[in-house]
């Protein structure tokens, strides 16, 4: 068990909310969350549909462990077809919303159609109702959260919401839950807004039970918590410094993409690092970081809770930003900082607040601003486009201005909200877009970490680090150290990470546990909770099936093997400094072997044999 075995189908066109039994045959093949919801999506939508049309569907899905006491078991994912990439989108979020949904008795919600007017979905256990949201439309995520809590007089309600950027069609908008947690990537929030769905507000008090073997489950949970507590990354590094523990490390190994990936080391890295967030400020003697915070059930607690210096230019006249809110994690600090050449920690924290307030994915936003800065410096755009703002690398004021514009979609904000690929195409310089399949890169330069090049090129949702985080092996030595500058063996490494991650993303657990946990730690927890046999081998099989299913969807959506590539800059322009100096990403040395390991043709197509082996739908 562990699943509630019930999903909610919300037809926004008709205004109906209808419960439906969960397809347990599929749950046995795909576990839950990412895998299971993708199976539903593949069944129910045309892969070639318009991602922002009424024919696309959006699924919010929990995993079987979501809402239990297993460490980090509060995750949910948003699965849909991405407007940014045209590929399958699956964005995973923490906070408390996912566990609340499960506590209300639902494994997932499938949203279909499009509402004729703005609505929000209110769920109180078995009661689900679509409510008018005309008054919420045009409000930020934070305002909406406050208004809904006030309206329902329920401080314990958990809310997932889209901001003004999504309403304005920004192609990389997130779904924000619990004020500063995000289903961040691939524009899943844009899809939600396109359906005129402003928010989902949930209160659950039914409890999560149905554990197959409660005693064995609690014993496995305790063992898992102990492993996390005793591991130096999950027990010390992440609680103390968050993912920002990586800033100085990645910069030193020469894999810190800088100024739209023109360079691989950032001279200002230490000023925007996790360590810098602990340094007392001159103005008030307080550090940027107030404390760490945990998501539901998480015993790691990597979350950052920060303040901005009240004297900083970005907030001096804006007391609404003087309190604590979600602080910088590594990807945001990199994209907003290193990639734009800005080393002003307070400016980055302010922009991070704005990204949470109005639901911009900080990775795509930062990387798109970086592309815009290169367009500006190369003369492709000028101050005529930017209201007179000097949109140059390193300009913190310009970065803050860009975020304010992106949040509302006004003026040049509408250009930024196209994302890097469309922006660079619009201004005639497509080669300046640092994207794969239309999605912007995260914070690891594949010239300095070769495995990440293959990771990005083959990721089923476009450039992404969370599909196979080989940084663990290549830099941190987890589970075993490999040489980041070598390509040998990386095809197998990437495949292994992709498959294991797909399984973890389908369980309700957080992928950050895998700094300490292997599938040998995870399997006993799933196996004790869920009907059936969930050995590590079975989880790998489920993970690979999910990967193949996502790939199959993408192929049917019109993506081909030729899209499994990287921008020329990473393949042709050598790294200028650091340990990787002189290196390009040798993708060609890894890709053919990867295709072979996957059971695909030389041009990346699934074979009939592979399809049959994984029992993929036709």
């Amino acid at each position, binding site marked *: 068990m562990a699943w509630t075995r019930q999903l909610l189908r919300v037809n926004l066109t008709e205004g109906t909310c209808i419960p439906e039994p969960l397809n347990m045959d599929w749950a046995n093949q795909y576990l839950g969350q990412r895998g299971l919801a993708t199976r539903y999506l593949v069944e129910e939508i045309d892969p070639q549909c318009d991602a922002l049309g009424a024919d696309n569907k959006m699924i919010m899905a929990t995993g079987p462990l979501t809402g239990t*006491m297993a*460490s980090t078991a509060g995750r949910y994912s948003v699965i849909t077809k991405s407007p940014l990439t045209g590929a399958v989108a699956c964005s995973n979020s923490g906070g408390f919303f996912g566990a609340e949904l499960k506590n209300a008795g639902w494994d997932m919600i499938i949203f279909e159609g499009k509402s004729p007017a703005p609505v929000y979905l209110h769920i109180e256990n078995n009661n689900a109702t679509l409510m008018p949201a005309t008054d919420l439309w045009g409000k930020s995520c934070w305002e909406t959260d406050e208004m809904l809590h006030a309206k329902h007089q329920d401080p314990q309600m958990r809310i997932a919401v889209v901001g003004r950027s999504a309403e304005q069609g920004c192609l990389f908008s997130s779904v924000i839950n619990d004020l500063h947690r995000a289903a961040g990537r691939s524009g899943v929030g844009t899809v939600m807004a396109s359906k005129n769905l402003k928010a989902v507000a949930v209160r659950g008090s039914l409890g999560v039970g149905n554990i197959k073997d409660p005693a064995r489950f609690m014993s496995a949970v305790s063992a898992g918590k102990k492993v996390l507590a005793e591991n130096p990354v999950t027990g010390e590094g992440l*609680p103390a410094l968050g993912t920002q523990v990586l800033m100085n490390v990645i910069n030193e190994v020469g894999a810190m993409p800088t100024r739209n990936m023109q360079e691989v080391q950032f001279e200002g890295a230490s000023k925007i690092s996790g360590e810098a967030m602990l340094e007392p400020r001159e103005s008030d003697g307080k550090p940027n970081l107030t404390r760490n*915070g*945990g998501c*539901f*059930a998480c*015993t790691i607690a990597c979350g950052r809770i920060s303040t901005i210096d009240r004297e900083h230019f970005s907030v001096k006249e804006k007391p609404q930003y003087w*309190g604590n809110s979600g602080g910088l994690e590594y990807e945001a600090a990199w994209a907003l900082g290193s990639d734009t050449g800005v080393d002003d920690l307070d400016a980055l924290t302010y922009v991070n607040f704005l990204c949470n307030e109005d639901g911009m994915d900080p990775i795509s936003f930062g990387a798109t601003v970086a592309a815009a800065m290169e367009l500006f410096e190369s003369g492709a755009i000028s101050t005529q486009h930017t209201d007179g703002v000097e949109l140059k690398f390193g300009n913190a004021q310009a970065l803050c201005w860009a975020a304010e514009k992106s949040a509302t979609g006004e003026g040049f904000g509408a250009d930024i909200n196209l994302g890097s690929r469309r922006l660079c195409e619009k201004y005639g310089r497509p080669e300046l877009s640092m994207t794969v399949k239309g999605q912007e890169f995260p914070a690891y330069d594949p010239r300095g970490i070769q495995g990440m090049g293959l990771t990005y090129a083959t990721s089923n949702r476009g450039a992404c680090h969370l599909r196979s985080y080989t940084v663990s092996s290549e830099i941190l030595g987890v589970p075993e150290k490999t040489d980041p500058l070598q390509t040998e063996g990386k095809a197998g490494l990437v495949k292994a990470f992709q498959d294991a991650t797909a399984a973890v993303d389908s369980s309700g657990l957080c992928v950050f546990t895998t700094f300490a946990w292997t599938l040998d730690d995870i399997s006993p927890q799933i196996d004790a909770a869920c009907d059936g046999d969930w050995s590590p081998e079975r989880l790998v099989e489920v993970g690979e099936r999910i990967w193949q299913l996502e790939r199959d969807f993408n192929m049917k959506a019109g993506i081909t093997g030729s899209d499994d590539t990287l921008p020329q800059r990473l393949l042709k322009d050598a790294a200028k400094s650091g340990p990787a100096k002189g290196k390009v990403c040798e993708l060609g040395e890894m890709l053919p072997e990867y295709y072979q390991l996957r059971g695909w043709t030389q041009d990346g197509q699934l074979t009939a044999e592979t399809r049959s082996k994984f029992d993929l739908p036709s």
Partner: protein
Amino acid sequence: MLKSLNIDPGKCTGCLQCEMACSLENEGVFNTAKSRIKVFTFHEEGRFVPYTCTQCDEAWCMHACPVDAIVLNPATGSKDVKNDLCVGCKVCTIACPFGTVNYNVDSGKVVKCDLCGGDPQCASACPTDAITYVDANATGLDKMRQWAGKTDNAANTGA
């Protein structure tokens, strides 16, 4: 030795492991909505504060109960609700100055912390020692130790 729950909000990360452990022990499911310990988030201030019954000696709830359904457990010092006696009148929820006795609409009885009979699951589950179960006569010992460590002994070392 009588023990009591000792809460250090400065160590709390807001993960709700305590609420889940409490609901599992008392309700048989993971259900933070039914927990007897609650973690409050003060978002603007960046603070998390776990809060539950402190087991007052002269317990207002116990004195207020018209049917003597709240009784002292001499082994632990906790004030326990006797479900077979409780009539659900809720007078104790009014009497408690701290709000830590609450009515459960499903059972028609009130619920409050009973220290899990001497092995409080919230404390066992807490990953950061924000909730500990310690000697009731010396709940301040950890704080004293911290301050003792900061005491300047320079004069004694002759430096």
